[in-house]
């Protein structure tokens, strides 16, 4: 009940004309990012952080959150219309969405995706309201040892973001941590890894690294290929209303997608692509006609799109309540929160209740804005695809430069972004995942500080982490995540080697 009272106060703030305007702008920009090829939600959110620099923190985060879930939906439009997924979570939508478009049913596919996304996102936000306060109260019992162990859970998630190679993910995690230690040591004040370069005394900032990795790196990768226009003629958009029988079938798919997306959003280390792919395969299992999947059936669009948006909203639960970013985009949102002087975690709800409930309320409003925006304007969004990439790319570069510079009015940060862009390009070429480095860059300083505080309390004894029940619980969870990830990675290595032995 208390949560709903807070939520009502949040609605009062979120419905202020200014915040409503920023939520709408965020939804528009997010959808634009999702629609345009070559920009995923992580890169897009990072690129647009500078727009929010001078905003009041609540408005800034409302806008960034809207960009995030707007981009999740924007990716669907290109998947359905031209078979080009705007981001990884929409890949699976191409399978049936594009087939529907070829049959002249693009409108129905986009309509059911918008409705499913709205339902999934709204239910997940309702879940956030229900669990936020109990989870926060539990987390308020944390001292430094518990916080350190919790952050260790966060770090162990690096293995969950591994992609093809666990070793490469660990290396990237280590590189992110090393980057995070650059600057003045928080306890003794000694400069580390600064090489007498004055701007490095303030540490390596998060925005230039993210913009370099995701913005410049992505542009360099795309520049390798032909920059000719991406547009291809897809299905025409006509009626947005699915047929009555399609609605009946879709209801169950949307419900299953919501449940799955919400559940996966609570587990840090998963990502929205996992939610949409799992949802698609579950639908196939439940279906009476699994062979029809991929031929243009509506469940193949409704379920993954719902799961993907339910995931996007539910993933904010571990961020807001425990300070754990579960995906690269959420890690970028966490960075934006920290830049605004707000540390995600249990204290956020007690120290900045007004802020956090306004953001939660804005999620409902944002989902509604997306629904209103996307149903009638889909045709307009599709036209944006006609902008040639070589023009778009120049504007992205301009935004990168502004973003990196305006953070601290420093050309050094622009140089750092360029260096990180080159590194990002090389890492992408060599299949090193970037997400673990971003995650550890954010978590590194928090982790070091809590470890050192804990050891000061225990007079140097590491037993403090094992004798406190909550801390021990988190250590066990972290160990389980690491062992499971290593176990999952192991068989593929063994298989490869046995195959090689046979050869």
């Amino acid at each position, binding site marked *: 009940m208390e949560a709903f009272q807070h939520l009502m106060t949040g609605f009062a703030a979120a419905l202020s004309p200014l915040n409503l305007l920023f939520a709408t702008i965020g939804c528009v920009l997010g959808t634009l990012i999702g629609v345009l090829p070559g920009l995923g939600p992580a890169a897009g959110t990072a690129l647009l952080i*500078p727009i929010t620099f001078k905003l009041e923190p609540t408005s800034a985060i409302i806008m960034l959150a809207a960009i995030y879930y707007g981009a999740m939906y924007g990716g669907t439009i290109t998947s359905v219309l031209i078979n080009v997924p705007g981001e990884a979570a929409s890949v699976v939508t191409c399978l049936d969405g594009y087939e529907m478009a070829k049959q002249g049913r693009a409108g129905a596919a986009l309509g059911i995706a918008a409705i499913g996304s709205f339902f999934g996102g709204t239910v997940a936000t309702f879940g956030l309201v229900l669990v936020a306060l109990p989870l926060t109260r539990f987390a308020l019992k944390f001292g430094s040892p518990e916080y350190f162990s919790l952050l260790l859970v966060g770090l162990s998630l690096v293995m969950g973001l591994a992609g093809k190679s666990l070793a490469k993910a660990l290396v990237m995690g280590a590189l992110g941590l090393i980057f995070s230690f650059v600057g003045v040591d928080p306890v003794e004040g*000694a400069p580390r890894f600064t090489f007498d370069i004055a701007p490095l005394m303030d540490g390596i900032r998060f925005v230039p690294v993210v913009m370099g990795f995701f913005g410049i790196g992505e542009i360099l990768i795309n520049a390798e290929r032909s920059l000719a226009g991406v547009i291809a003629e897809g299905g025409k958009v006509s009626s947005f209303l699915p047929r009555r029988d399609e609605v009946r079938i879709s209801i169950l798919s949307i419900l299953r997608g919501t449940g799955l997306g919400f559940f996966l959003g609570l587990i840090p280390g998963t990502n929205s692509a996992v939610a949409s792919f799992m949802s698609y395969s579950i639908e196939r299992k439940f279906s009476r006609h699994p062979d029809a999947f991929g031929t243009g059936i509506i469940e193949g669009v409704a379920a993954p799109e719902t799961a993907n948006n339910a995931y996007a909203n539910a993933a904010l639960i571990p961020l807001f309540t425990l300070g754990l970013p579960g995906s690269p985009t959420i890690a970028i949102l966490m960075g934006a929160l920290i830049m605004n002087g707000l540390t995600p975690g249990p204290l956020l709800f007690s120290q900045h209740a007004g802020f956090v409930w306004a953001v939660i309320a804005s999620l409902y409003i944002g989902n509604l804005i997306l629904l209103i925006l996307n149903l009638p304007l889909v045709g307009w969004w599709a036209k944006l695809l006609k902008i040639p990439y*070589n023009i778009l*790319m120049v504007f992205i570069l301009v935004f990168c430069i502004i973003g990196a510079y305006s953070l601290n009015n420093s050309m050094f940060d622009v140089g750092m972004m360029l260096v990180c862009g080159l590194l990002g390009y090389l890492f992408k070429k060599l299949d090193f995942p970037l997400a673990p480095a971003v995650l550890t860059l954010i978590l590194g300083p928090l982790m070091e500080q809590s470890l050192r505080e804990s050891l000061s309390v225990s007079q140097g004894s590491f037993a403090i982490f094992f004798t406190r029940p909550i801390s021990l619980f988190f250590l066990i969870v972290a160990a389980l995540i690491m062992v499971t990830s290593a176990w999952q990675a192991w068989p593929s290595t063994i298989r490869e080697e046995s195959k090689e032995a046979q050869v």
Partner: protein
Amino acid sequence: MRRLNAIVWGAMLAFGAFVILQSLKHNYYGSDFGPGPGFFSFWLGVLLMALSLAQMVMTYRRPAEPLPAGFIPGREGVTRMVCIIGALAAALLMMTTLGYSLTMLGFCIFLLHRLGRQPWWLTLVLAAVASFGTAYLFGLLQVMLPKGVLGLM
């Protein structure tokens, strides 16, 4: 692919050794209790070296594989990348002198003309929007951009 992997993991190995050497310049234990400024970075260097060594061994144990198709960009691709990196580096060097708008105008004209292959009039219009237009927009948002010696943002 084997040679490339060996170079990559060799570079990581060297970086790990560099991190360890740097961390040895700092206290391993703190003046208070627990780890000092060099503790974490030392062990991260060790982790980097261990992982790199393991991967190098794996690289030589596996049979050689060809590079994935399209791994090495074609001449046009390389030219485009060099243009982008060069333009960014030039903008970095000139921005404090010329100011944001003029630098970005040159930056955009060069990239749009070189990579965009648009008509001149469109190149100029787009470059003006991307330079003076964004300067005006971010000025409204109270974001400070370099003014240069001419005092022109």
